Structures are given as C-alpha cells and as structure tokens.
C-alpha cells in the first residue's frame, strides 16, 4: 500500500517498547494469578488427586466436598462446625464497626474542617500521631482498661477497638475531602440558619457519597482482614473468621487436608474480594482524590 496521507485517527503501531510493556504486564498478571489458580484447583480436588503432586493441573474429578466441609464441618480445635461460625462472627463485628467508625470519622472531619474548633490542629496532630504508632503498643494497656471496665472479651469491646483504631484514618480521609469543598457553601448554610447537625446532615453528608464509598471499602477490608484485635479483644464466642481460619489450618491432626484449607482460605477472603470487584473503580477514584487533595 502507498503511504497514506495523515488524516483522521493515527494508526497504532506495535513498537518494541509496546511489546515489552505487554510482556511485562502479562508476566505480572500470571505471577499474581498463579497462587489463586493453585488454590482454586486444589480446593476442587479430592485428596487422592492432590497426593499426586500436579499442583497446576485441573481437577480430574471435580468435587465441592472440600468447600462444604470447610464451611460447615472443619474442626477448629475441639469444635467441628466449620468456618461458618467465624463468618457470622465477622459479620457481626464488621457491620457495627464499619458504620460507627465512618460516622465518627465523618463528624470529626466535618468539625475539624468547618468549625475551627479551638485546638483543632493539636487534636488532629495527636490523631495522626496515633495512626503512626504500631498497634501492638496499645494492646496490653487496652486489655487492662477493658478488663477494669468489664467489657473485655465481648462484641462491644472488639467493635470499640475497631472504631478507635479507625478514627485517625477515617478522620484524615473525611477532613481532606471536606477541605476540598468550597467553604462558602458552609458559610451560606450558616447564614441560612443551619446549626452543627443540620448543616452536617442536610448539606455536607449529601455531598459525601464518593468519600463514604471509599471509607466503606477501606473499613470493610481492614476490619474483615483483622486478626490480632479479634484474637485479643473479641473473646472465644466472637472470634472472627481470620482467627478461625488459622485454627482450621493449624489444628489439623495427621494428614493435612490441603483442599479444605484452600477452600476455607478463599471463603475467608470472599468479602474483601467481592468489595474490590464491585467497587474497584470507586476505590481508585477515592484514593486518587485523597492523594491529590492530601
């Protein structure tokens, strides 16, 4: 073909650089997909097949037995009720913790960015400092405090812990978002006679959808994946899924039921996974907005 006159859309050419980029992306994708692949196929195999050692192969006789066992009858120590107990525990911890920590963070951020409370900067600084101190430092003092107040080892206790430790991040997130809203909006609402709460609920909160979504994602994944707080504060009755998963995987006697371990692990990862898939776009957008405004 003769050389075309440049017009319209520029033709895409496959350059060496572009091939390199694709090669890298594909390799990276494979690298991160491989463990997931192994987990999925292993969980669908019966033990005899696993013993053969072809860990990458598709299951010859596919079975959901391992999944069913992991959910409802795998043993965590002495009890053999599967990981479902932990799942519902996690849900019961998750819902109040997420809601309360977001509400607290939103109100904090709102008060800090709009109301110029006395000592607001000092308070914000202290909160931020709190975000940088390793959690482990707080564990023992908190255990003592909760023991003294009598709520140690309860649902209230673990929810409270999640709300407290979520506060710095949530406050920072909402404060930065609200700092990006025009202050004149707030002034107009003040002149219109809005008070602290009416401005928050009628003007500010309706504008907060994007950041509420981001906060929900952060808190759901963070709290769902928590291990150490659950282990320390929730008490035997309320151990979250992550702790029970650990018990299942580590308490096996005799032969290791790899397929059950894999299935249980994936069940435990399900909630954050769904959250990422459903809201990945929002997640990136929110983080980007936070980063730019930060």
């Amino acid at each position, binding site marked *: 073909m003769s050389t075309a006159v440049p017009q319209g859309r520029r033709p895409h050419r496959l350059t060496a650089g572009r091939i390199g980029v694709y090669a890298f992306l594909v390799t990276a994708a494979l690298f991160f997909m491989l463990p997931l692949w192994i987990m999925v196929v292993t969980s669908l195999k019966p033990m005899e097949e696993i013993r053969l050692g072809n860990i990458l192969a598709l299951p010859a006789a596919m079975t959901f037995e391992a999944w069913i066992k992991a959910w409802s009858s795998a043993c965590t120590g002495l009890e053999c009720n599967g990981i479902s107990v932990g799942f519902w525990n996690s849900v019961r911890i998750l819902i109040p913790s997420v809601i309360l920590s977001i509400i607290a963070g939103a109100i904090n951020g709102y008060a800090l960015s709009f109301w110029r409370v006395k000592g607001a900067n000092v308070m914000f600084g202290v909160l931020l400092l709190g975000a940088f101190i390793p959690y482990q430092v707080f564990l023992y003092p908190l255990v003592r405090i909760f023991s003294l107040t009598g709520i140690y080892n309860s649902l209230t206790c673990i929810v409270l812990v999640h709300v407290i430790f979520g506060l710095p991040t949530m406050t920072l997130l909402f404060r930065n978002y609200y700092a990006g809203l025009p202050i004149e909006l707030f002034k107009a609402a003040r*002149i219109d006679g809005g008070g602290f709460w009416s401005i928050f609920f009628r003007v500010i909160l309706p504008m907060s959808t994007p950041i509420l979504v981001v906060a929900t994602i952060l808190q759901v994944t963070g709290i769902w994946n928590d291990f150490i707080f659950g282990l320390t504060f929730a008490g035997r009755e309320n151990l979250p899924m992550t702790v029970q998963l650990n018990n299942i995987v580590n308490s096996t006697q005799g032969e290791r039921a790899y397929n059950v371990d894999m299935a249980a692990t994936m069940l435990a990862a399900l909630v954050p996974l769904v959250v990422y898939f459903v809201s990945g776009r929002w997640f990136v957008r929110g983080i980007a907005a936070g980063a730019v405004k930060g």
Partner: protein
Amino acid sequence: MSTVSVRDVTVAFEAVQVFDGLSLDIEEGEFIVLLGPSGCGKSTLLNAIAGLLDVAEGQIWINGKNVTWEEPKDRGIAMVFQSYALYPRMNVRENMSFGLKMAKTPKPEIEKRVAKAAELLQITPLLDRRPDQLSGGQRQRVAIGRALVRDAAVFLFDEPLSNLDAKLRNELRVEIKRLHARLGKTTMVYVTHDQIEAMTLADRIVVMKEQKIQQIGTPDEIYHRPANLFVAGFVGSPQMNFIKGRLENTGEGLSFLAGDRRLSLSGYPFITAPSSGQDVVLGVRPEHLEISSTGIWPGFTVDIVEPMGADTVIWCSDGVGSVQVRTAGSRRATPGESVTLHIDPAQVSLFAAESGERL
C-alpha cells in the same frame, strides 16, 4: 439612622491581625460598594458584618442593635457569594427554601416567598432543576433568589459577578441595580475589585487598600476628587495620568512646573495650604487631556493608538514620560505624529509627592 455600623473593628486570624480599628457607617437603603485590590480585606470585613468571622475587638451594629455576639442567622442579613455556594444536592426550590425551613417558617409562607423571588429574578422555570443543570448566570440568579427570600434588611454580596463572563456580568449588574431600586429600603453592601461595578452600582464607594479605608465617597467624588494617589490610580480606566513636578509661585499665583512645562493652578481648590517649591504629582484623567493645536503643552509625539470603539486612546510621549489621551472614537492618529496637548486646569488633581495625599 445607619443600618450597618462597624465600630473600631479588628479581626485577628491565627498569625495576622486584619484591620486596626476600622469604622464604617452605612445608611439605611444605601448601596455601598467596598472596592479594592485582592487581599485588601474586603471579604474579611463582609464576613465580620455577617458574623461568619468573630471580631477580636470593636462592635458591629445592624438596625440599631449590637449584633457583635449574634449568630449570622440572627443578624437580619442575607449573603451572596462569588462561587454561588448553592447546595449541590438540592434543586433550586429547595435551595431557596432551605433558610426558611431552618427558621421553621410555615409551608405556605415559604412557597409564597419562593414564588415571589423566583418571579422577580425570572427563574420560575428553573425551580425544579439542580444547580449542576444551570449555567453560571442562572446559578448566580438562584443564589440572589436564595438571599431574597430571607427578607433581610441588609444584603451582602462578595464579588457575585466575578465568575461570570463579561456579557453576563453586565446583564446581572444592571439587574442587581434594578433589584435594589425595587426593594426600596434594603441596604446593600457589595464587594468587588472591579471599578466599573463600583462606579455603576454604588451610592457610595469605600476604597480600601492594605486593610485600611482610603476614601469613602460617591462615585463622582471618588472619580473626580480622589483622596490620594492610590484611589486616583485604582479607579478609572484607562488610568489617570500622573506627572511629577513641583509647585512654584509665579506672578499670577501658584503654578505646576514639570521641566519647562507649566500649568497655572489659580483656580485649583486646595484643601491644604500648599507651599511653593513643594514636590507634587499632577493627576489628569485621559479625557481631560486634548490634542489641540492651540494647546499649552507642545512637543509630544504619538506613540500608540488604541481604538476602543466609543473612544480612542492615544498614548503621547515627550521623551520624559508618556500620557494617555482619550479622544473621540472616530479620531485617528499616526504613530510618530507631533502633537500639542491641552490640559483643563479645572479638572486636575494634585497630590503631595511624599505622602500621596490630595492637596
């Protein structure tokens, strides 16, 4: 009786202190424009009047009541902002009724007031739209409507037209003026850095610079008798011409002298006693200079010609400095052409070179 009275007010931000005991009295029904460059404290003053900023010292009085410690909503004011500040998740009707709802006004009364304001501003067809479905001009109309329904005695405007394009700005400017006339006894305090807005709208202009009031006066006074060099230079476009020189006592009275140019000041209304030999700056508006063969100042050459339609601005230079002359729109000149300028001594302003104050 003055509706708004700012008495010895000082505002303190964390690090900086703004205003050093600023006072201002605004009469009932007056249209006051606060004019000044960015950062001179116009918004701060307006926010202090509105109660959105606490004053560190002094008092604010509105309608004969000391409101220094009152909440914004209790001050009998309404405010319009540069960024419109419409509540984004409410439609126009909800935006306009928000304040009344907060004040627990009965529903029929709210509807009546919103309808009235909407009609006055010709936004009735927009009542069910959301702010993001409106153009800039429509948004600002809605913002004015929202202020209107409050039935406030005092309206505060903070650069309400600065975000609009030139054409809309002119339209809305006229409408605000009409609105003020229609509302009758409503006092308006209007902040702008645009001297055209100030000149066209104001009953009185307050010119500010660096958080100090430079001059308070009618547009005429501000334009024709500026109190100092800053006011003279800030108001008027093209800018007033400034010519450095000194005063000299000649046979027939005091004269202005710049090099070998001379201008008799026998008719000039001095407000302070001048002294011979004093260094001064002569201020002449471009329209008070004339290119005329019978002029008194020869030896200028045409530098640049700027046709502006209604008039033509001709820059003339004499090697020492250059001046702008405003002539008829039909007037043409060729750069390089030699011209003689005429100056009308009755229209000039004289400033002390040292202090910049009017003489």
